[in-house]
Structures are given as C-alpha cells and as structure tokens.
C-alpha cells in the first residue's frame, strides 16, 4: 500500500511491551542515516509508544498502516 522504499523489515508481531520499541531502537542503531525500517506489531500500546519513541529519539515515522490488528510503522533514521 505504501510506496516507501524499505531497507529493513521487522516482524515484531506477538511481542508485548516494551519489546517492540526496544527492538526497533536496537535495530536503528545499526542502520545508516536516511535508511527506512518497517516494524510490524500487534502490541496494543504501539500506537502511542512508537510516536513517543520517535519523538525522543529524533527519528521520523513516515507512515502508519493498520491492517486488522497489525500496525505497520515506517520509520526513517534521521540522526
């Protein structure tokens, strides 16, 4: 649905708080600035956790797609 070029795919379905943001923050460290990752999660708290994490880490959420109970967050490493 989203035509964003993705560099890393993360299947975090089934993982519960705080693992989704923990794993994304670990992965982002290994990426270059400008690269994009997409995180698929079923964590109910993700809709508020991901934006909060993005704000405090200075990274950008390009898009959020919701398919049933799975949310996909397209995140770009800004710094």
């Amino acid at each position, binding site marked *: 649905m989203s035509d964003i070029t993705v560099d890393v795919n993360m299947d975090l379905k*089934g*993982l*519960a*708080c*705080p*693992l989704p*943001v*923990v794993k*994304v*923050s670990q992965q982002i460290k290994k990426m270059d600035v400008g690269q994009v990752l997409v995180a698929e999660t079923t964590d109910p708290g993700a809709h508020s956790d991901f934006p*909060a*994490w993005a704000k*405090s*880490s200075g990274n950008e959420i390009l898009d959020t797609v919701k398919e049933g109970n799975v949310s996909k967050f397209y995140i770009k490493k800004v710094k």
Partner: protein
Amino acid sequence: MDVEKTLQSIQEQMADVVDARKDKLSMVVFSGDLDKLLAAFIIATGAVAMGLEVVMFFTFWATPALRDKKKKGKGKDIFAKMFGFMLPKGPSKVTLSQMNMGGMGTAMMKKIMKKKNVSSLEEMIELAGELGVRIFICEMSMDLMGFTRDEIIDYPGLESVGVASFLAEAGDSKIQLFI
C-alpha cells in the same frame, strides 16, 4: 558595567543548568513483589529504548529477587539462615502484591502472561543486562538479611553499594522513581 565578565558568568551558569540533568533514569526498587518488579523492569528497559541510561538500586525486599536459585550462600548464622529460608529465592519465587491467594494468583498471572507473550521476570532481567541497565545492590540490605554476594545472580556489572552511590546517580538523573 563589564559586559564581557557578565556574559562569561551567564555562560558558566547556563552550562550548569544545561548539563545538570543527564538523560538518565534512577530507580529505587524496594518492593519484592512480582508485579512491582515486572513494572520496574518494563520501565527500565523501555527507558533504554527511549535513549536513557538506567540505574536500578535494589534494596530491602527487592534484594532477594536477585538471588540465584542454583547458588548457595556460605557462612550464614542462624538469623541469616532463617531469612534465607523465609524470603523468596530469586525471580521465579516472587509473588504478586495482591491476590496471591496462597500462590494461586501468582501462578495464574504467570500463565496469562505466557499466553499473551509477556516476558517473564527472568527474561526481563536478562534483557536488562543485555541493554546495559546498571544494577546496584544495597550492601546494608544484604547484610541485614544475611545474603552474600556468592548467591546473587550473574548480572553484568552488578555492584554492591551504599545509599550515597545511588544518590549520586539520582542527583543528575532526569527521572527518579521509587518502586
């Protein structure tokens, strides 16, 4: 009216203000209950994800939660042996702060957590270690309850400290919590 001097003084004051609080979370973990310990570790690991440095100070009832069930403390007197027997031996033995119902409540909670894929306390402690969460154990609590360092779990960089060490960390932390 020495503008330069005033400017320099203001810059120095600014430096103090700006550097005063580091991106750090310091927590006193006082409770030995499963639910409270879980909350402490979820917050701690979440904080690392948010870019914070984390220090957890385990004291009083939280101290037994760091015992390794496979290890045995040596050289204990009668009181230490009693404490050792009465207090939980490690993270797998701690119980809920409410609704424990003789152990049934805790068992049910663990079952539901497993079903919903929520990490267990042991898993959270391991994750915290991998993420670089620092754990300080209160020397005094250890001494009071008769626990020795050789019966504590293997946790990277674990330190036995007094309250001043914790307060030094808390002093320049952005967030301080008591659990």
